[in-house]
């Protein structure tokens, strides 16, 4: 029991919020493209580019905010290329997304080598990280629970505030409605004179914006450094969450919290001396289990349909000719 108490406490919840934020931001970005009917597997690359250029911008300008702006601009550039290829030229979404992911991985490594002459990571070098936001009065009001709402870097707040804003966006604004219509029933949008191309471009760029913020958060907020491939699959995890949430902001939040919790929990376990290889698999095992559990609901129907069609086949096989005998 003592161990459990040490494992699960306020600090774990705060850590969960911290680890959830980057994947939540990128998944919410992906929600725009998912709702607009684009399968965007390029989230990982947009996030990685955002992380790298945020560091670069922060070093060059000496300002964390301008660093974030640089990161967002880089992710937007990736999103624009994605939109041009996928929306205008109708290239395959998966191929383009994967290509851009590979490009982002390779590009950050070569630029790192060219600019800093190093491989692996950029630490120090004058990177200015995002400050932690201490909410005044939080400690007086909540005491030891204050760390649940105060002391995070700005993007954590942005990520969680974005969830209700997106709910409002999809339900109450014209653009949000049109994004849904374009994704769900493009013919209907076309018949009503809604430009599918314009809506999909907008959705792609909104996605780039949030993916860039997610990347900047990784390298300037979460930690203050850049390492090769530091998005480490968060973009892909976001894609998985998007598939089973269908881009609904609240379901995205739930999925991201689950993943964030597993991530924070595994970090916790590491400090207790469990083998790190095993511990690092925890988030992925949790995500896989959750995905399986969710898709299991759809299973009975598939099984039933399969059984029905097999039965039909079997009854036809058994069926005798006009002079045949019925097997008993």
């Amino acid at each position, binding site marked *: 029991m003592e161990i459990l108490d040490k494992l699960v406490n306020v600090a774990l919840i705060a850590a969960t919020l911290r680890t959830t934020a980057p994947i939540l931001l990128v998944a919410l970005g992906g929600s725009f493209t998912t709702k607009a009917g684009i399968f965007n597997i390029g989230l990982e690359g947009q996030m990685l580019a955002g992380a790298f250029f945020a560091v670069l911008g922060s070093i060059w300008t000496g300002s964390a905010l301008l660093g974030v702006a640089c990161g967002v601009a880089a992710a937007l550039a990736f999103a624009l290329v994605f939109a041009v290829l996928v929306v205008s030229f109708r290239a395959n979404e998966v191929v383009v997304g994967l290509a851009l992911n590979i490009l982002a991985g390779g590009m950050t490594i070569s630029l790192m080598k060219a600019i800093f002459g190093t491989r692996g990571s950029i630490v120090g070098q004058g990177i200015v990280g995002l400050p932690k936001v201490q909410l005044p009065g939080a400690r007086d009001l909540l005491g030891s629970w204050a760390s649940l709402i105060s002391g995070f870097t700005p993007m954590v707040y942005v990520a969680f505030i974005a969830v209700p804003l997106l709910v*409002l966006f999809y*339900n*109450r*604004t*014209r653009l949000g*409605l049109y994004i*849904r*219509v374009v994704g*769900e*029933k493009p*013919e*209907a949008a076309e*018949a*009503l*004179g*809604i430009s599918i191309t314009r809506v999909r471009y907008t959705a792609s760029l909104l996605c780039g914006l949030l993916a860039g913020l997610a990347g900047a958060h990784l390298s300037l907020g979460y930690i203050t450094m850049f390492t090769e491939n530091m998005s480490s699959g968060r973009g892909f995890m976001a894609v998985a969450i998007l598939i089973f949430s269908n881009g609904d902001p609240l379901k995205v939040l739930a999925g991201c919290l689950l993943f964030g919790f597993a991530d924070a929990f595994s970090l916790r376990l590491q400090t207790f001396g469990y083998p790190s290889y095993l511990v690092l698999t925890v988030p992925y095992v949790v995500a896989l289990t959750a995905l399986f559990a969710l898709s299991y609901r759809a299973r009975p129907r598939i099984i039933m349909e399969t059984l029905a069609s097999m039965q039909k086949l079997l*009854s*036809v096989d058994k*069926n005798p*000719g*006009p002079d045949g005998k019925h097997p008993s």
Partner: protein
Amino acid sequence: MSNASGSSTPHNAGNNAAGANVAGPDVAGMAVALTGITKRFGAFIANDGIDLAVRRGEIHAIIGENGAGKTTLMNILFGLLQPDEGSIRLNDEETVVADPAVAIKAGLGMVHQHFKLVPSLSVADNVFLGMEIRRHGLIDHAAQIARTRELSERFGLRVDPTERVGLLSVGIEQRIEILKVLVRGARTIILDEPTAVLTPQESRELFQTLRSFVADGMTVIFISHHLEEVMEVSDTVTVLRNGRRVATRPTVELSKDELVRMMVGREVSFDRRPREPQHGDVILEVEQLWARDDRRLPALRDVNFTIRSGEVVGIAGVAGNGQTELAEVLSGLRPASHGVARLKGRNLATFSPAEIREAGLAHVPGDRMVRGVDRNASIAANMLMGRQHRAPWSRGGVLNWNAIGQNASKLIKDFDIRAQGSGDAVKRLSGGNIQKVVLAREFTNGADFLLIDQPTRGVDIGAQEAIHDEIMRQRAAGRAILLISVQLDELAALADRILVMFNGRIMGEVAGDDADEDRIGMMMAGVAVPEFAAEPA
């Protein structure tokens, strides 16, 4: 045609010369007036100098067979197609309807056959999609729901504005489409075959709604090929046939069989083909066959007939009276709800479509682009379909393209298919040549029973003759043939016996060499003709 002189358009020369047809008192005061509308698609003339005048405040039905040009005409009126010739007046103003936006602005609204609704959105959201009511930049759902409710109550379009569209039936979806048109301020509403997807109850409710529109001073244009509903609901009927206007008459002056005769007509007349009498074995027996359509309504009611080897049995009827369902049941695509169909003594109900074909069915489907061919595949591949697992076309699961190509080239020659070669994609061919590809495949697979549905629909005259020749050759070769056609003259030219279908029943039988158009027309309109009722074969 006293009205034609009032028009200032240069296309009066194209007017229908039949003096008996009165379009209306004057082109002035019309909600819609089309003059001399002609539309060509390549060599095919879909609309040929059509005049149409629709008075304000009437329900004007446009009736005709499939392919008569009804939908093309309405698409031109609504700006979805541009006419090659002719002019359009909307509310007494000469208008170039460049796109649907122009039509909507002029007070026109169109309810298409295929609905374009978003399943995850509410009814009200769908109704107002594209013209949302907004307050402070946000969509005002409450106001949209209130306005939708108000309109739906006023015109008897029963629907709950807050419900999600994905959960609703087709009939309610149609009401939503009508509401969409109303919200956009339409005063003239065009409905393209609105009852095709409705149950009888829903159709009755729709007709009440249409009457409430007219009571409100609106105008309704109603496209249909169902006689009864046209007789029931319309004030004026315009009949189209083969792209031309046959007549425009007040509904009260018309009887059902007059209407049928105008619809079916006798445009192209085929001569009856000479034939040897044949008395072969019974190949197909259909006994007390019942089946339901996609709406779960009875589409076949107690159908009985037999076909012998070397016999062509024709099925006549206005489209939508059960012919499609009959073809589907016989080819295994639709289950029968009662009764049996036997092919050479074997009950078809227990077979899959592939097994029925193995058992001796060849099927020339009514919609060749959907069920007849893969339009993107080559001629050779299309001619292979259904026998790819048989020698010499394949051995051990490996296709022998040499044999397939040679066979295709031979069939192209035998059936006089105009194509570059057997590797051509089918979609490059004309309609007639595509149909010949289907015939070449189906007629050469050695089947004893040929199920042929609308063999010459959309096919030019030359190819029609060739197809008829081929059907007669198959008859001479001892095949049993069921020929379903909406063209009476085609049946009269080919069939040994003609069965007339109406509302899922066989109304009666006529010998092919005694095909009296009037009697068949009466039976097609649902009038029983006792002395011609089906006799036991």
